[in-house]
């Protein structure tokens, strides 16, 4: 009887172990399956060997992962897979597994992946993440070797500067760029008699014109002229550009070491926005929501706009004439640029890093392939190539490139500083005195910068 009981218990125990899945205690089962795996590995090795002989590029065999933020159609799985298919025609031995991230949760997904040692090999985003954040933390691979190619010499200097870390290493290889602008509902402006306040030729307007236009919209009955969205960080470059431009303020000093949001110009701008009827500080919206509301005709203007939005679903579904505009400013508008490209996470695997570099080179070095990569992004190339010939929308938006302002999103500790920005807007919206709110923002943001620099 006792024996039987013991047997049963042992049985129950091993059942428990099987259920434990990842536990290390289940050696026997593990060994059994490892045999099967080995045989399988042997067969795959065989096929790989064959491929090595027949394949065009015998050098590298690797399986790499690519995570992309939704930069135009780089956020659509089908489009990216098509680009990868082109890549695989030349490099059949490099498998690229693609994951699309979103701006709402993407950063947190990457954080969890980094912390658990599962960071992707390639990532597609801008310098504020690749250089100022992950690069500064020493998680990225230096891409100087790709930057030293002849083709790379053609990349615009301002872009190059943004892709380089404070330590002089290149953590991003750029693919495309744009100037973030804003947009207005032309039909609504016309109906409200507000078209007189904008210059349709240069697409600029003064701060006073902006005020008058909003007043006209409100008088017309459209009380939701615009929204200073501030639920979270999504699309925050729009609100920053709006505030900075109104009275010619800047976001950081020229050296990108300190935040200047508490300057007189910026305080004046925030106070103006707060006082304007028709401009709501809306803590229930992020940039994406704002674009949507604009394209639905609910909001009269969008501060989080660019050519990608126009070409995307929101722009296409709008039932009215969308007129892209520079931000209202008394001087020359300074638009926030967007730069996107590849970075490589240092996963301590020389083979995968090499494969990732091969991928970047394929996408950026040859003009034909590069044009495809740029077109997928819906933005502009970072060096001179012939692209978008006769594309009306691109010509229209091309006007804004001349207003491209300083790319300041490379301050160390940027990730924390930007969260302080929308928290500050929420406070202003909630009735906190502007001066108090911006001072608090600058303190937090500068502390974050100092901490990150010290690190």
């Amino acid at each position, binding site marked *: 009887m006792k024996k039987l009981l013991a047997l049963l218990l042992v049985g129950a125990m091993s059942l428990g172990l099987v259920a434990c899945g990842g536990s290390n205690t289940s050696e026997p089962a593990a060994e059994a*399956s490892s045999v099967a795996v080995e045989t399988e590995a042997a067969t795959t090795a065989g096929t790989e060997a064959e491929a090595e002989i027949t394949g065009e590029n015998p050098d590298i065999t690797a399986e790499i992962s690519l995570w992309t933020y939704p930069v135009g159609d780089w956020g659509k799985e089908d489009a990216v897979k098509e680009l990868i298919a082109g890549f695989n025609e030349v490099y059949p031995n490099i498998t690229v597994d693609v994951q*699309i991230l*979103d701006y709402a*949760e993407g950063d947190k997904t990457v954080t969890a992946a980094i912390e658990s*040692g599962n960071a992707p090999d390639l990532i597609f985003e801008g310098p504020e993440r690749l250089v100022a954040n992950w690069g500064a933390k020493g998680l990225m691979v230096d891409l100087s070797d790709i930057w030293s190619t002849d083709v790379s010499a053609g990349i615009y200097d301002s872009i190059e500067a943004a892709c380089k870390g404070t330590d002089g290493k290149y953590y991003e290889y750029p693919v495309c760029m744009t100037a973030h602008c804003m947009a207005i509902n032309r039909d609504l402006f016309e109906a409200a008699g507000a078209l007189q306040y904008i210059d349709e030729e240069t697409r600029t307007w003064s701060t006073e014109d902006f005020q008058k236009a909003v007043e006209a919209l409100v008088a017309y009955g459209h009380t939701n002229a615009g929204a200073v969205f501030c639920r979270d960080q999504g699309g925050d470059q729009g609100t920053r550009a709006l505030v900075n431009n109104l009275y010619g303020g800047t976001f950081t000093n020229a050296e990108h070491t300190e935040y200047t949001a508490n300057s007189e110009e910026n305080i004046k701008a925030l106070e103006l926005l707060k006082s304007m009827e028709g401009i709501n500080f809306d803590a229930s919206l992020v940039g994406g929501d704002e674009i949507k509301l604009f394209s639905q005709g609910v909001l009269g203007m969008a501060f989080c706009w660019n050519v990608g939005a126009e070409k995307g679903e929101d722009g296409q579904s709008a039932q009215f004439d969308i007129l892209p505009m520079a931000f209202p400013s008394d001087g020359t508008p300074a638009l926030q640029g967007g730069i996107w490209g590849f970075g490589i996470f240092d996963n301590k695997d020389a083979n995968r890093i090499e494969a990732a570099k091969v991928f970047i080179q394929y996408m950026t070095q040859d003009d034909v392939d590069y044009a495809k990569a740029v077109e997928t992004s819906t933005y502009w190339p970072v060096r001179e190539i012939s692209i978008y010939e006769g594309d009306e929308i691109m010509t229209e938006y091309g006007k804004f490139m001349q207003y491209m302002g300083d790319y300041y999103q490379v301050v160390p500790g940027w990730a924390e500083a930007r969260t302080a920005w929308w928290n500050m807007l929420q406070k202003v919206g909630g009735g906190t005195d502007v001066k108090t709110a911006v001072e608090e923002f600058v303190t937090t943001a500068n502390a974050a910068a100092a901490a990150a620099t010290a690190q």
Partner: protein
Amino acid sequence: MKITRNKVYKFISVVIILIFAFLFTFPLYWIITGAFKPYEAINSLTPEWWPSEWVTTHFEKLMSNRKAPLWELHIPFGSFFSENGKPIVFWEGPEAPAAIRWLINTVFMAVTAMLLTCVTAAMAGYALAKKRFVGRTVLFTLIVCAMALPKQVILIPLVREMSDLNLYNTIWSVIFPAVGWPFGVFLIKQFSEGIPGEILESARIDGAGEIKTFINIVFPMIKPGVGALAIFTFINTWNDYFMQLIMLVNSEVWTISLGIAKLQGEYSTDYGLLMAGATMAAIPIITVFIIFQKYFTKGITMGAVKG
């Protein structure tokens, strides 16, 4: 006089409950109708109470959004031997809309977690209630204290641990912490207190072994408790959005809840698409609920519980 007052009270109560019932049904109604309303109606400033036109465009968009293999069967523990630490897939299903795969993942996750929890908790709860052993009080105190612990508390260590176990980004990383959560043990322990000691004693005298006693005598008596636990675990795991958010990266391993949340991140306020996703998430579980309604609502009496 008294009777009339009673009746008035009852009448008013019923009216109030009817109002609440309406409020509780409305979101679901809004989800399902919203999924079939055309784009313009959804974003119109005057809501459309009943769809003037039924369209399936949102579902088409949902289905064409992402693709994933319908299923992928892994070699158990394969990730420990594969070169890249990823699971070794030996059987991959046909390519299908990812939303359907999410649904399959969710069902697999909830059912597996439910079964594992019920089996382990039934055994442990019984032992805790009916056996006297060294460390019993300590263990029980630990369980009570850990019961309400939100998973956010152990977020970072858990992520690292899952990675060490090669479970990160697999559905198991959501299942195992759910099974480890000691609420089930507590619940079954409370239930098992009600088992009369004499029955166990007489079974022992009759020569029944521990296992036999457990299966033939204990289990039938704690069945309602296990039923309650099964339902509770199933729903909780289904809704355990946080763990899914943290642990699951690749769209092939997402659950339907996570899928909708991610759609929300991508398409912000495309409520038509979101409602289509929500409908897909809600309909299967509501169907199960209505079919098994009897079990959901019957037998979960806690009257038998002795604290």
